[in-house]
């Protein structure tokens, strides 16, 4: 949210408007792509107009984002105690308990459950995202080729993505039931939906099936903007198929691929519906953080529920931050230039890449 406001603010900040300060240098960022023409002409009243016009958006953002987060934090710092009076009626008292709900995430029985859920969440995220990226990339490359029945193939790849997650989880539960298709194919009785290692595989399989097409779709969009001339030039230079893939396709599709991986990572960190519907609640082998928070909330323990939800929230932020830092993913196109050309393509012909 703060990005939105600082991103817009410089547009309405003429030099005269900031008292006691020179023109902020840090804000030059958004103006990089465009030349400064016309900015100094802006009248004072326009700034206020801009503020007035933006305030509904900010108010909505405040109500739907800032307010719930604030309430969740408040909840996570409180504990609701319940006692029964003489008639057996509940007397509720909410009191401030500081960081106790957070400390409980790391000690005792609740701690075991939280750490187990944290482990499951991370495990599912790593495995499903890796599988989905590889499969998605493969599907995208296939979809990108010209062959008979390509339209049909493209459409059919998207079918899993079009099915609501809960419904696809139900389908998989049917497949994975004790006398289901999976066991019939394997020829032995694996208890997939019982609490055990098999349940983990079931969840990974169902989730990969469902979301690999999503990765494929985004990667396909990335593939389609790679100009054919680059490949032709590479061929002339004598690059073989693997070299073309490794040195042209992959670098040029990297921005799209990273966006896809980022989305998938954030998505699977809050995985809920697949394990919930496919395996069930409170099954340690698959319980994710979202399920844990949900279960606590359903039992009206809002303090602990909020604490684990906030912990998940921070974990996701951290994961996103590390991801952006490590891979240098750049999601905001700089200046006016749309998808920027990776440096490595220069080897095969700068001029042809636009």
């Amino acid at each position, binding site marked *: 949210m703060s990005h939105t*406001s*600082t991103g817009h*603010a410089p547009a*309405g*900040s003429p030099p005269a*408007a*900031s*008292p006691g300060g020179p023109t902020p240098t840090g804000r030059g960022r958004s103006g990089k792509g465009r030349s400064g023409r016309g900015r100094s002409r802006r009248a004072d009243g326009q*700034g*206020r107009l*801009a*503020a*007035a016009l*933006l*305030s*509904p958006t*900010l*108010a909505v953002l*405040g*109500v739907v984002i*800032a*307010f719930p987060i604030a309430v969740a934090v408040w909840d996570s710092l409180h504990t609701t105690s*319940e006692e*029964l009076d003489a*008639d*057996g*009626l*509940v007397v509720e008292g909410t009191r401030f308990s500081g960081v106790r709900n957070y400390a409980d995430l790391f000690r005792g029985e609740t701690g075991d459950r939280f750490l187990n859920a944290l482990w499951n969440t991370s495990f599912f995220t790593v495995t499903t995202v890796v599988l989905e990226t590889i499969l998605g990339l493969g599907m995208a490359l296939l979809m990108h080729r010209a062959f008979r029945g390509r339209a049909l193939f493209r459409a059919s790849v998207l079918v899993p993505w079009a099915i609501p997650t809960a419904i696809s989880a139900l389908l998989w539960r049917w497949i994975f*039931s*004790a*006398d289901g298709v999976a066991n019939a194919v394997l020829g032995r*009785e694996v*208890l*997939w*939906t*019982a*609490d055990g290692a098999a349940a983990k595989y079931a969840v990974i399989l169902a989730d990969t099936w469902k979301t690999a097409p999503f990765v494929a779709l985004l990667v396909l969009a990335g593939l389609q903007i790679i100009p054919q001339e680059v490949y032709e030039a590479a061929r002339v230079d004598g690059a073989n198929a693997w070299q073309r893939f490794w040195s042209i396709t992959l670098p040029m599709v990297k921005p799209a691929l990273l966006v896809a991986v980022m989305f998938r990572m954030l998505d699977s960190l809050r995985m809920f519906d697949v394990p919930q519907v496919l395996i*069930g*609640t*409170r*099954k340690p082998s698959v319980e994710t953080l979202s399920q844990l928070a949900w279960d606590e909330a*359903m*039992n*009206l323990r809002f303090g602990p529920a909020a604490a684990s939800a906030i912990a998940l929230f921070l974990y996701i932020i951290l994961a996103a931050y590390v991801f952006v830092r490590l891979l240098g993913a750049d999601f905001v196109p700089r200046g006016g230039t749309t998808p920027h050309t990776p440096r490595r393509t220069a080897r095969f012909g700068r001029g042809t890449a636009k």
Partner: protein
Amino acid sequence: MNTMTLTGTAATAIALTLALSACGSGSDDKGSSSTATNDARGPITFATGKDLTGTIQMLVGKWNTAHPNEKVRIIELPEDGDQTRQQLVQNAQIKSNAYDVIRLDAVWTAEFAARRWVLPLDESKLDPSTFVPAALETGKYRGKLYAAPWLTGTGILYYRTDLLKAAGVKSPPTTWTELTDACAKVKKTPEGKGVDCFAGQYDKYEGLTVNFSEAVQSAGGQVFDASGKPQVTTPQAKAGLQFLVDGFKQGTIPSKGVTLKEEEGRRAFQDGKLVFHRNWAYVYAMASAKDGSSKVNGKFDVVPLPGKDGPGSGTLGGNNLSVSAFSKHQATARDFITYIVSLETQREYGKEQSFPLSRTALYDDPAMVKLYPYLPVLKKSLQAAKPRPVAVKYSEVSAAIQDNVTAAITGKKTVDQASTDLQTALSGLTD
């Protein structure tokens, strides 16, 4: 400066929105606390499960014709129990008056009553002595009636008459030993090849709590005693758990039992893969289907559940009707409940759909018995049945039971260990 104006405006807008919403809930509070004004008459809503046969609509239509100023509108809630509870709890927490009459699962009575989400009912107006006694019990909390019994039912034992006959077993089992003996005989016959012995519902969900309670009761124990103290470490309670654990160990209960819920078990029985099956009354009609969906039609019958040393005891399932504490037209809501659970309305309802109802007279009615041949067995079972534990934190009680029983039947804990752990967990939840 512009940024400051911006945040200032935004802050004002947020503050305004919050103030508005605060006003909203404030006035709502005032409305619900003064009960006198809520005891009025007028149109109400009836939150219930899916009306599959359209009979509820027909019954409500009759009421609406007779009470043009107090019309009832049906709101269908999700079929899944947990989702229904979630929706009702959320509504209660915001003190919404969206639902006036609500259908409560038998095990939610304590929670909803203790949290003051539903109001006490005047028992005397409901002709209480003609209810199935155990069903009436499920509507009570601390001696007061909060929910009028409507639908009820308990577990019964389905068994394959053809297999028992082929194996020379003359009468269906009344004890666990007779059950396992019968299975051993069936196994030796050519028809009994590939047929598993017995299964109930042992997946980790509410059904496991039901099956565990039944095993404990059928061994002469009880999960909670009359004063509400957990009693799962008694020899009887342990014997109940031992029966389930041994069942899995010896293969009496197939190992896939840990993935079975009602529907999975019903399919297995219908496909002829089980000799004995514990389930609710609804299975009867489906297993009797003559359209080819059931391989066992005409080859099965029902008896009350067997026990350790004699007939067993089922737990009660069922749905009762309550008046929401946030209803604005409570007088109408109470009258409507009286109408729906009356013997005459129930008789009419029972003719159209097979879910067992709460008035004793219906179980002896020849017309009803002709429609539903299992009613005499069910009546006998209901006399021995007991409600599930009454606890305000029922869902946590049930979760503790499921955790420990699952650990026991999958061999992760011994029976002794699981019982002790469960006793500790339950003691912590009921203090």
